[in-house]
């Protein structure tokens, strides 16, 4: 057989976070030609987001955990790029993955397990030009984004997602203000509070609506993850060192300010998840970093027709979706953190390398990764059950609170659509109120609209994973082989 790179089977990996990088290294190491397509200027994704090169950070690890793993991924990627096995397309924003019928006959033999795909990506910050990467197989490693439930004042500048505060800190080495409150629920809050505090912000409070003592009910699962316990203890110690007060079973009731955030009101929750009357207290701050968990990015998978499992893309033991030729790994299949993403990416890369060469992967190749995956999925199921927004959060959403930030739809309109106009599902609520029809296409307000309407949060279909200029859409794209 020839060793010409162009003749090798070609994999397009979408997303250069932990899952995408692990898959790229695994597949490229086994002879697959890989094009890694990512929207950022540098690899790393959200978890390993790097400071911009021009900022000259000599100790970026001060903002990171599991730095050695990152060094291994970074150096491995560089070696594959140098050897010509991997092409890394930065600043490429994928808006659609198209499954085309194979008419060329030039692809590798495994036609039953692969397809012919065109990955359409908009270039650079201008996003006025699109290219198409043709590939025999696609790995979706598009990660996740943060879920935020609304409360009065949440649209004030100075209120932002916990992950957003972290991204701006890691990538731009900037803080949104001097005094921050970190609030919501979930395992992200502690690292964000620690990050802000260690970078010089005063963190006036960490407000968590769940009670981490609930972890005690899951002693068996916890015992299997001593590292996770140690990590939690380390964050707690860091918070104490920075004099950050943690308020568990508390919630932010409202944000206040004129033109920008000036203070938040925080209150205690009772056993039923309701605000305990009389416990409200005002905390002055110019930043509120808030989050209520994470959601998988599934637009590309949905448009390809991939089946879902809960909120994420459904995959089998090899990380294959139910669409031939399409694999998925990392948080696009369900939220579970960087280590789980690495395991899934690794398995996906091995599976793809075998399948693209018409072989069945031997499970023993990835037995340890599969074991880690099983354990971490179990652990994150526990995390998911412990961390939850207040059960009665919707009660705090006043009628005039904007729920859909893009289209400025107030809670009253959503309630009216259900009570007066016969809506009983999120699609009808959207059509009647415009909630979810704006720039973000409901990514921000989706869970809140479903919660307020009292219906299931069914994912809406988004044929374009991001907006596309009509002029670009109208033209046949330039090809990258």
């Amino acid at each position, binding site marked *: 057989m020839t060793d010409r790179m162009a003749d090798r089977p070609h994999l397009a990996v979408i997303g250069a976070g932990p899952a995408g990088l692990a898959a790229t290294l695994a597949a490229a190491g086994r002879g697959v030609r890989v094009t890694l397509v990512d929207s950022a200027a540098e690899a790393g994704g959200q978890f390993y987001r790097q400071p911009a090169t*021009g900022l000259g*950070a000599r100790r970026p690890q001060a903002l990171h955990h599991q730095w050695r793993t990152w060094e291994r991924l970074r150096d491995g990627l560089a070696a594959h790029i140098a050897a010509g096995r991997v092409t890394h397309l930065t600043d490429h924003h994928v808006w659609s993955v198209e499954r085309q019928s194979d008419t060329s006959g030039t692809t590798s033999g495994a036609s039953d397990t692969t397809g012919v795909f065109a990955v359409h990506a908009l270039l650079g910050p201008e996003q006025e030009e699109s290219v198409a990467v043709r590939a025999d197989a696609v790995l979706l490693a598009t990660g996740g984004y943060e879920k935020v439930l609304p409360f009065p004042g949440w649209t004030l500048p100075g209120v932002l997602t916990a992950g957003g505060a972290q*991204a701006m800190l890691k990538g731009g080495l900037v*803080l949104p203000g001097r005094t921050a409150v970190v609030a919501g629920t979930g395992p992200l809050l502690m690292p964000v509070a620690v990050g802000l505090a260690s970078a010089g912000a005063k963190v006036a409070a960490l407000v968590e609506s769940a009670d981490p003592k609930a972890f005690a009910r899951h002693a068996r699962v916890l015992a299997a993850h001593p590292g996770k316990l140690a990590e939690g203890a380390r964050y707690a110690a860091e918070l104490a060192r920075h004099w950050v007060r943690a308020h568990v079973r508390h919630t932010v009731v409202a944000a206040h300010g004129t033109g*920008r955030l000036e203070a938040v009101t925080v209150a205690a929750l009772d056993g039923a998840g309701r605000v305990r009357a009389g416990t409200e207290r005002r905390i002055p701050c110019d930043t509120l970093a808030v989050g209520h968990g994470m959601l998988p990015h599934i637009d590309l998978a949905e448009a390809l027709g991939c089946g879902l499992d809960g909120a994420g893309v459904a995959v089998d033991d090899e990380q294959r979706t139910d669409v031939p030729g399409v694999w998925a790994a990392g948080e696009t299949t369900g939220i579970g953190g960087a280590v789980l993403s690495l395991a899934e990416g690794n398995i996906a890369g091995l599976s793809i390398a075998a399948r693209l060469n018409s072989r069945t992967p031997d499970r023993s190749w990835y037995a340890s990764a599969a074991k880690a995956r099983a354990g971490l999925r179990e652990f994150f199921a526990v995390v998911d059950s412990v961390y939850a927004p207040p059960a009665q959060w919707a009660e705090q959403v006043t009628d005039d609170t904007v729920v859909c*930030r893009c289209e400025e739809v107030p809670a009253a309109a959503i309630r009216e659509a259900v009570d007066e106009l016969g809506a009983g599902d999120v699609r009808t609520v959207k059509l009647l109120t415009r909630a979810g029809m704006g720039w*973000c296409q409901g990514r*921000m307000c989706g869970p809140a609209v479903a919660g307020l309407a009292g219906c299931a949060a069914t994912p809406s279909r988004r044929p374009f994973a991001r907006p596309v200029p009509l002029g670009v859409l109208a033209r046949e794209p330039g090809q990258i082989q």
Partner: protein
Amino acid sequence: MPRSPLELVHARPGPAFTLTFDDREITVLPGQTVAAALWSAGITSWRTTRGSGEPRGVFCGIGVCFDCLVTVNGRTNQRACLVRAEPGDVIRTQEGTGHHD
């Protein structure tokens, strides 16, 4: 204890440059996004909504929410959290749809 993110990571940034935001000159470190540049200058909002005219700035920080839309060099609806700032950029508060007749 470090007093700024730059101190925390022992940053030695390249030479700073300037751009304008609504005709005001601000200093930017190389590699920063428009959002990071504006934050560094103490600016937290750069868009007003098309309905009620409320101010908005960074919300998700990773390009998903489109709340941080801004006009850069005449180009409307740019996500400030994604677009890198360049020397001499002319950045303007974006009002409503950003399109005006």
